[in-house]
């Protein structure tokens, strides 16, 4: 069948402005509510995790959420060994997750094959859906949890939106060949890979950019978002020069792979901040772009921004300048090694003191609950389970690869706290707990309990809390759960009452503030 339908040249849809631009602002601006929300509140505040919960803390931060098995494993091998395991994802056997990923046949296709097989509008939608589904499946079921967190982090840092035009056929290649090989490697290699990333070159119009009127889109975002940042000391003239440098970095419209096109390239001396190049030939343009990338990747302003991003993801919304600076120095001293920066951050006092400091964003929350309930994926139902989880992620505003702007989803609290978002978090916990979620199999809630089952209302509440929260809760909150059960501490729980209340009790623990944070 394949005549090899070529990538359409007609529609090069620039990703239009934000689905959530204000939230993009929100990532740097502590919004409204939080000014008022630090009012002193009478009564017990959320207790700190107890002493043995270095384990819970590390699991919360390095993975999408704890499971009883994972907690046992980390307690057994120790935190240091667990960190080492996660830093070496290739050595972790992920065959169980790979079996689930078989429901997404597009993952194995080249971009050209994707165009041939999914070349219609609805086919394109199907393709993007598979990529999104694979992201959430991996977040839940992959053993290579840290790798998945970093695919998410760098995928958003170098965000590309799968528009209804070309970019949608290029995203799977991006995930497989551009992101995964580099997320725990050197940032400079990741940046060069992004300048050769067909999805990036399509999304930010660079594949059409040519002399004499280059398109400035990629050049601007490369400076403003990917590397030095808007305070990094570049001018509009630098943006224009960078745009000239990037002319020629393009895509082959048949293979949908990177192709350098010398005929598009601007020739002549260029200067961007402290970097300059004679740029004397059209043929040599790709190397000029790589040279600029190397300069930007190793710039101190880039070091700071990369360090900051990692600190915000792994420590808190407001990491100290001391930690960010020291992490930036590690970045520069280790030839832009992401793993080195991460180890430095994980070894810091600030990390240790930040238990429970981060709000779980929707992706982290959905994955955490699904993992925590020991849910299995019903492979025989194909995409159903993935679609169900994506439905909630969409409602919560964090559908994978659905951020329109190049800056990616925000990583701080205020961007995620609308009342609709809070409501949907509660709804998701409910639906999962009552097992009303087709395509995934949640064990019956009785399996959250020890056998024989707890005999009193107090024990019932305690067992549920321990199983799902892995930490104690305040007396007042425990009382609230008892009031929900509708019995006093020492009362026996009749069988029918027990069965009726168990799912909502689980949902309430999942919906509690304890599990909204990590």
């Amino acid at each position, binding site marked *: 069948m394949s005549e090899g339908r070529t990538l359409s040249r007609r529609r090069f849809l620039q990703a239009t402005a934000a689905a959530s631009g204000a939230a993009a602002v929100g990532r740097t601006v502590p919004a409204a509510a939080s000014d008022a929300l630090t009012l002193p509140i009478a009564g017990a505040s959320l207790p700190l995790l107890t002493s043995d919960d270095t384990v819970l803390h590390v699991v919360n931060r390095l993975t999408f959420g704890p499971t009883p098995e994972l907690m046992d494993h980390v307690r057994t091998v120790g935190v240091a060994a667990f960190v080492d395991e996660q830093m070496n994802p290739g050595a972790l056997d992920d065959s169980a997750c790979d079996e689930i990923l078989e429901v997404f046949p597009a993952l194995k296709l080249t971009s050209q094959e994707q165009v041939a097989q999914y070349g219609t509008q609805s086919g394109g939608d199907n393709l993007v859906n598979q990529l999104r589904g694979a992201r959430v499946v991996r977040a839940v079921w992959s053993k290579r949890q840290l790798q998945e967190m970093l695919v998410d982090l760098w995928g958003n840092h170098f965000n590309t939106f799968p528009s209804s035009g070309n970019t949608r056929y290029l995203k799977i290649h991006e995930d497989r060949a551009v992101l995964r090989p580099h997320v725990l490697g050197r940032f400079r290699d990741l940046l060069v890979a992004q300048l050769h990333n067909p999805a990036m070159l399509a999304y930010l119009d660079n594949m059409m950019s040519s002399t004499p009127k280059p398109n400035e889109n990629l050049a601007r975002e490369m400076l403003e978002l990917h590397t030095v940042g808007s305070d990094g000391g570049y001018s509009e003239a630098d943006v224009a020069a960078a745009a000239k440098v990037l002319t020629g970095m393009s895509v082959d419209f048949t293979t949908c792979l990177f192709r350098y096109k010398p005929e598009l390239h601007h020739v002549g001396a260029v200067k961007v901040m402290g970097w300059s190049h004679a740029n004397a030939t059209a043929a040599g343009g790709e190397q000029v772009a790589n040279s600029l990338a190397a300069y930007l990747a190793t710039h101190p302003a880039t070091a700071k921004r990369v360090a900051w991003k990692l600190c915000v993801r792994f420590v808190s919304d407001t990491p100290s300048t001391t930690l960010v600076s020291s992490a930036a120095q590690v970045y520069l001293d280790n030839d832009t090694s992401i793993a080195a920066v991460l180890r430095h951050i994980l070894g810091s006092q600030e990390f240790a003191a930040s238990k429970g400091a981060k709000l779980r964003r929707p992706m982290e929350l959905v994955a955490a609950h699904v993992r925590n309930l020991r849910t299995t994926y019903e492979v025989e139902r194909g995409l159903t389970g993935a679609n169900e989880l994506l439905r909630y992620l969409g409602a919560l*505003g964090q559908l994978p690869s659905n951020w329109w702007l190049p800056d990616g989803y925000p990583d701080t609290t205020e961007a995620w706290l609308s009342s609709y978002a809070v409501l949907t978090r509660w709804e998701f916990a409910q639906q999962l707990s009552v097992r009303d979620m087709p395509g995934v199999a949640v064990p019956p809630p009785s399996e959250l309990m020890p056998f024989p089952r707890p005999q009193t209302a107090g024990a019932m509440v305690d067992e549920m809390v321990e199983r799902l929260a892995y930490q104690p809760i305040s007396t007042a909150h425990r009382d609230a759960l008892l009031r929900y059960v509708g019995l006093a501490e020492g009362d026996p729980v009749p069988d029918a009452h027990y069965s009726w209340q168990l799912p909502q009790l689980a949902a309430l623990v999942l919906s509690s503030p304890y599990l909204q944070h990590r």
Partner: protein
Amino acid sequence: MTNDTTITAVDVVGDEEPTAYEDCHCDDGGRVLSRRKVMAGAAVGAAATAAHLALGTRVALGATEATSGDVLVSIFLKGGVDGLSAVVPVTESAYFSARPNLKVAASQVVPLDGRFGLHPKLAPLSDAWLRGDLALVHAAGSPDASRSHFDMVAGLERGIPGDKWGGTGWIGRHLETVSGGATKFRAVSIGDYVQVRLAGSTPILATPSISQFRLFSRTEKERTTVERALDELYQGVDRPIAVQAGTTLEAMRILSGIAAQPYTPGAGVAYTGTTFGSRMYQVAKLVKAGVGVQSVAVDYDGWDIHASFGTPTNGRMATALESLGANLASFWNDLGEHRERVTVVLMSEFGRRLAENGTGGLDHGRGQCMFVLGGGINGGRVYGTWPGLSPLSLDRGDLAVTTDYRDVLAEVLVRRCGSTDIGKVFPGHTPSFLGLAQAQSA
């Protein structure tokens, strides 16, 4: 257990909202909203309607809270709207020569005055223009000349040019200076995130639609006990999510009451099936429900058109303007008598370049055209000093800025929304008014 995933009447208990207004994967940034599923044994239909009404009446539904002035509806058009296409400078030869492919011809516009014409897709707004409700401010913008989305959106939402770091927005600061009663609806976002311009000490409520704002329960008793448990689980919690949880629960109770009431849009109203249309419908409903809404924020994205801009009748810009024109006009008609106490302001982060680029589009520019719509607005005029499009008048090739956007917003806040402390809203700036708003009579 039922596995019904289609939207049926039972999913929107008591709400007339047609399913055409559901979100779609539209070019303007539609997002798939969750389709609420009916849980096993859920009490649906008439019984549930009665239950919603009962909840509604417990919270004094229908009582109009005293507010200080007009309801402020702020619409941020994200991406950088090309004001030169929206409100065309038909007497400027430089416009026509700079845009051989993208120009709107003089014969295609709806004439406004001798100098400007409305893009044909905005024709539905000509009624408002003729009625004197619509004022336009061309060549408006920020003193900040950045062409970066992020910097400009941040600065404009804050209302402090060049300052993107900070905790409050211009509407949030305004609300801190005016009274608003005990309503939960002083600051509302129709969407699913919190816009920074609402940020301040006033709690904010965000929802994509009124009817979606609830949890399902197997029984009414379960609904009550679950809501109470959630309320208690978030007491004594010193985290941002705790306050939002309280707002959420309170809003659930009130909105379920509104959803339970029958609603008919007014005459001449035809919202289209886009995200923006759906949102403006929700705003109209909320304003007319009389629950003390003081400010509503809606964002409409999709304006950052660097390529494939299209023609005045077809293409990305035409599609976006069509949604804007039809739905804004429908909203305005839908308000009916409520127009007298509502003012709508539309703005974007910047305009777009005068000259086309090499990919059939327009890159980021400077001056934009703001829209102000209100019963108390001196409409039917294009305000501001038009700088012209000669090479010396341009700002690095872009339409210059001659009116500070804060002057437009300040006049609305002072003359229509009861502001008594505009210096707190726009620190470091002394606004001068254009005369586009009538002072509220006492």
